[in-house]
C-alpha cells in the first residue's frame, strides 16, 4: 500500500527540461535512493512526488491512488528537508506534534506518539527546547522524528545528511538504516553521495540530466553499470575505461585475451581498480602499463597508470614497491571485465 | 496546487487601492486645475501666477530645496562614513542620530520655534555671549534670511536621518574586499572614497536624492510653524487657497505645479545619476 509509481513524468521550468519522462516504481517498504550529480533533477522528482511541484506531464501514484493533482497534505507523505525546515517558533515537542495536531488527534494520543518517536530518535531530553538551542545533528533527528510521527505511507528525504559534518554523517547514516528497518516505511531518498546511496539503499536509481539511467540493487549497479556514466559516477576511484579493438571475436591486450561481445571494431573495456591484480613482472594473462603516480592511502596503495595515452587506476597492497616511471603488469580478476560501446557508452 | 492566479488575487486589493488613491487624484488634480468656467483653460494657473505670494513661494521652495537637500546628503554621508570608525558605539550613535525620523514636520517646526523665537534659546545664548541685548524676533517678514535659515536648520535636523539610513544601508552592500583590495594597491583614503565608495553608492544616493527632493518640494508644516505665511512656499499656498480662500481650482494648480517639478527633478536625477545595470543586477 505504501508504493510509489511515477509514470512518464516530464517537468519543464520555462525552457529548462528538468525531467524528461521519468518512470519509477518504489515497492512497499522499500528504501529507494535517487542518486545523481548536481542538477540532474533529483530534487525536482522528489518534490513532484511530494506535491510541492506539479509535473508538466505524467502521473504520480501513491499506493493505488492517483495523486498527481492532490496537494501535499492529502498524499499521505512526510518529508525531511535538506535544511530540516524545523519551525523555529515551536519547541521540539510541538514540532514533532505538528502533523498530529493537524490531524486533530486527541491530546493523549499525540503525547504518546511524540514520546515514542522521540525515544526512537533519542531526543527525549530535547523535547522542551527550541530549535535555536539544538546542534545540527539534533535538528536532523527532530526533522526525522517530525516526519515519522505522522506515520506516513511514504517518507521522502532530500539529502538529509548533507549538512552534517563527516563524522556525524556516518553516525546518522547507520542510525537511519536501523530506524527505517524498524519502521519499514517506504522511503524515497535523494543524495549525490554514492557511498551513502550504496550503504542505505535496497535499490538505487541513478539519474542523469533528467532521466533515470539505471535502476538496480547497489551490487548490480556497482558491478554491472548500465553505461560508462554510471560506472564512472559510482565507486571511488571510478571504473577504468580502456579503449581496445576487437578482432575475430577477441580482444587482445598484451598477454590478456578475452572473448569480446562484438566480432570486430573499437570497444571500451571497463574494469574497477580493485579488480586489477598488480605484478612487478610480466604475468600470464596480464598487460603492461607505466606508473604515473603512487598514493599510499592506508589500506592499500593507489596507483595511477598509463597505457597508450589512457590513464587508469589500480589498487595494490600497501607494501607493494612501485615508483613512478616503472612498468607494471596488470591482470583483471576473473569475470570482472565489462565492455561498453565506444560512442554510446552503453554496456554490451 | 493551482497557484497561477493566487498572486494576482493577493496584489489585487493593493493595486486597486493605489490606482484609486494615486491614479484618480492625479487625474482629477489636472481636471481641477485646467477647468475654466464650463470649459478648459489656464485660468487657474493665471490666477495662481498673478497672486502676490506666488513668485516668493516658488522661489523659496526651490531655494529651500537647493540648500537643504545637498546639505542633508553631505551631512548624512559624513555621518555614514563616520559610523564604522566608532567601533562598538556604532549602534548607539545610529540610534541617537535616527531619532528625528519619527518626528513630524509640524513637531519639528515647533521644536525649533522654541529655539528661534523672540525669547527663545538662541537669543538667550547670544545674550549670554554678550552679542544681543534685547529679544529680537527673527521669524518675521523683516528678517527673511534669518527665517529661511531657521527653516533650513529645522528641515536638516528632521530629515537628515532618512538620508543617513538609506546611505548606511547602501554602504553595507559594498563588499569590504573591494575597499581592502584598493588599499592593498596603495589607494589613499581620499582616492578610495572618490573612486570606489562613491560610485558604488550611486544607487543609494539616487534614491535618497529623489526621495528628499520630492519631499522638500512639499515642505509645509515646518515653515508654517516657524513663520506662518512670512515665508511663503508652494505647498503652503496650496493649503491656504484651499482652506482659507475655499478655492480648490487654484489650489489644484499649485498641486499640479508641485507634481510637475517633482517629476522633472526625479527624471533629472535618473538621467544624471544613471546606474549601470552591471553594478547592481
Amino acid at each position: 500500500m505504501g508504493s510509489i509509481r511515477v509514470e512518464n513524468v516530464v517537468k519543464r521550468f520555462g525552457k529548462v527540461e528538468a525531467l524528461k519522462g521519468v518512470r519509477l516504481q518504489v515497492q512497499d517498504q522499500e528504501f529507494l535512493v535517487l542518486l545523481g550529480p548536481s542538477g540532474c533533477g533529483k530534487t525536482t522528482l522528489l518534490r513532484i512526488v511530494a506535491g510541492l511541484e506539479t509535473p508538466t506531464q505524467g502521473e504520480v501514484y501513491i499506493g493505488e491512488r492517483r495523486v498527481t493533482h492532490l496537494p501535499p497534505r492529502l498524499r499521505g507523505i512526510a518529508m525531511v528537508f535538506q535544511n530540516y525546515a524545523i519551525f523555529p517558533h515551536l519547541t521540539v515537542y510541538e514540532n514533532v506534534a505538528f502533523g498530529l495536531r493537524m490531524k486533530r488527534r486527541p491530546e493523549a494520543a499525540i503525547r504518546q506518539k511524540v514520546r515514542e518517536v522521540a525515544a526512537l530518535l533519542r531526543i527525549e531530553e530535547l523535547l522542551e527546547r527550541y530549535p535555536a538551542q539544538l546542534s545540527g545533528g539534533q535538528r536532523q533527528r527532530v526533522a526525522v522524528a517530525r516526519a515519522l510521527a505522522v506515520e506516513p505511507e511514504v517518507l521522502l528525504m532530500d539529502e538529509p545528511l548533507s549538512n552534517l559534518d563527516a563524522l556525524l554523517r556516518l553516525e546518522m547514516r547507520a542510525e537511519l538504516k536501523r530506524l527505517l528497518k524498524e519502521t519499514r516505511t517506504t522511503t524515497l531518498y535523494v543524495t549525490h553521495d554514492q557511498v551513502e546511496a550504496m550503504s542505505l539503499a535496497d535499490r538505487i536509481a541513478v539519474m542523469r540530466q533528467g532521466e533515470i539511467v539505471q535502476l538496480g540493487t547497489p551490487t548490480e549497479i556497482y558491478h554491472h553499470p548500465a553505461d560508462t556514466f554510471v560506472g564512472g559516477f559510482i565507486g571511488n576511484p571510478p571504473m577504468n575505461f580502456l579503449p581496445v579493438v576487437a578482432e575475430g571475436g577477441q580482444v587482445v591486450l598484451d598477454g590478456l585475451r578475452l572473448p569480446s561481445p562484438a566480432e570486430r571494431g573499437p570497444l571500451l573495456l571497463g574494469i574497477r581498480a580493485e579488480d586489477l591484480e598488480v605484478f612487478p613482472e610480466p604475468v600470464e594473462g596480464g598487460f603492461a602499463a607505466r606508473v604515473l603516480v603512487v598514493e599510499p592511502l592506508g589500506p592499500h596503495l593507489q596507483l595511477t597508470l598509463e597505457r597508450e595515452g589512457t590513464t587508469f587506476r589500480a589498487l595494490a597492497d600497501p607494501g607493494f614497491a612501485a615508483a613512478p616511471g616503472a612498468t607494471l603488469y596488470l591482470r583483471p580478476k576473473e569475470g570482472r571485465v565489462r565492455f561498453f560501446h565506444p560512442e554510446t557508452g552503453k554496456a554490451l | 496546487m493551482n497557484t497561477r492566479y493566487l498572486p494576482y488575487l493577493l496584489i489585487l486589493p493593493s493595486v486597486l487601492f493605489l490606482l484609486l488613491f494615486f491614479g484618480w487624484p492625479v487625474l482629477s488634480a489636472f481636471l481641477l486645475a485646467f477647468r475654466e468656467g464650463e470649459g478648459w483653460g489656464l485660468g487657474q494657473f493665471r490666477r495662481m501666477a498673478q497672486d502676490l505670494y506666488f513668485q516668493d513661494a516658488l522661489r523659496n521652495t526651490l531655494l529651500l530645496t537647493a540648500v537643504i537637500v545637498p546639505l542633508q546628503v553631505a551631512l548624512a554621508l559624513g555621518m555614514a562614513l563616520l559610523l564604522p570608525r566608532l567601533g562598538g558605539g556604532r549602534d548607539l550613535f545610529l540610534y541617537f542620530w535616527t531619532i528625528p525620523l519619527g518626528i513630524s514636520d509640524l513637531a519639528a517646526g515647533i521644536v525649533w520655534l522654541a529655539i528661534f523665537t523672540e525669547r527663545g534659546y538662541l537669543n538667550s545664548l547670544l545674550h549670554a555671549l554678550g552679542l544681543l541685548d534685547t529679544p529680537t524676533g527673527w521669524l518675521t517678514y523683516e528678517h527673511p534670511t534669518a527665517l529661511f535659515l531657521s527653516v533650513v536648520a529645522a528641515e536638516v535636523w528632521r530629515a537628515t536621518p532618512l538620508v543617513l539610513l538609506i546611505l548606511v544601508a547602501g554602504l553595507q552592500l559594498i563588499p569590504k574586499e573591494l575597499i581592502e583590495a584598493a588599499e592593498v594597491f596603495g589607494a589613499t583614503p581620499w582616492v578610495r572614497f572618490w573612486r570606489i565608495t562613491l560610485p558604488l553608492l550611486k544607487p543609494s544616493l539616487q534614491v535618497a536624492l529623489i526621495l528628499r527632493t520630492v519631499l522638500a518640494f512639499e515642505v509645509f508644516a515646518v515653515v508654517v510653524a516657524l513663520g506662518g505665511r512670512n515665508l511663503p512656499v508652494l505647498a503652503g499656498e496650496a493649503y491656504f487657497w484651499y482652506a482659507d480662500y475655499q478655492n480648490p481650482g487654484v489650489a489644484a494648480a499649485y498641486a499640479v505645479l508641485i507634481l510637475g517639478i517633482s517629476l522633472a527633478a526625479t527624471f533629472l536625477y535618473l538621467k544624471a545619476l544613471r546606474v549601470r545595470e552591471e553594478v547592481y543586477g
Partner: protein
Amino acid sequence: MRVWPWLLALAFTLWVLLPIYLIALSAFSPREAVYAWPKAFLPGSLSLETLRFFFGVEGVWRATATSLVVAGLTVAFSLLLGAPAGYALARFPFPGRDAFRVLLILTRAFPIVVLALPLAVLFLRVGLYDTPLGVALVHTALTLPFAVLVSASLFLSIPKELEEAAWTLGCTRTQAFVKVVLPLALPGLAATAIFAFITSWNEVFAASVLTLQNKTLTAYLLTLLDESPLPFKFAGGFFLVVPALVFLFLVRRYLFTLWGISHR
C-alpha cells in the same frame, strides 16, 4: 584609537538631542519661564502647568482621540492590504511582478499635496469628508507601498521550506500561513504597523485638508498655531514628539528594513 571621530560623533548627537531637550524643558517649565528673558538652559522649576494648560484647551483630547482612530485604521488597512501583496511579491515569480514593484516605487514621486486636494473634493461628494475613515484612507495611500515592500522583505527572510514542511504535515496554504509564516513575521509586521501608525500620527497636510470638525491632533494644532500662545505650542510640540521617541525605540531592530532597504 583616534579621538576626532568620537568628538564628531558627539557633536552630531548633541545636534540631534539638544533641540529635543529644549522642547522638553519648555514643556515642563511654568508659564512665566516660557516668557522669561533670557531663558535658563537648565531646568529651574519643573512644573506640569504648561502641559495641563495644553490638555485643558478645548478640543485637544478629542483631536488626540481622532488621531488615534485614524492611525489605528491606517495600520489596519496597511497591513490587511499590504501583507498579502508583500507575500505575493516574496513567494511567486508571477508575470507582472516587476510592474507592480515599479508602481509601488512610482508612488514616491507623487506629493501628498496632489493626492489630498482632489480627494477632498471627491470625499465631499461621497460623504467621507471630515471623517476619520477618509483621512485614514489617504494615510493608507502613503503607508501602503512601504507596507508591501517591507512585508515582502520580511516574508522573503522566512525560508519557503518551512511553509512547504507545513504543507506536507497536513496544512492547507492558509493554515501554513497562519501557523508558520505569521508567527515568524509577527515582530516585523508589528514594526511595520508602528511605522504606519507614526506616519499617520505625524501627517499634517492631508489631515488638514480633509477635515473640518473632526481634525486630527496635528491638523488641529496647525489651525490653532496662529492664535495660540507659546506655552500651548511648546506643550503640543512636545506631546507630538513623545510617540516618535517611543516608536523609534520599539522599531530600532527593524530600522533598515523599514527605511533603508524598502527604499531601494
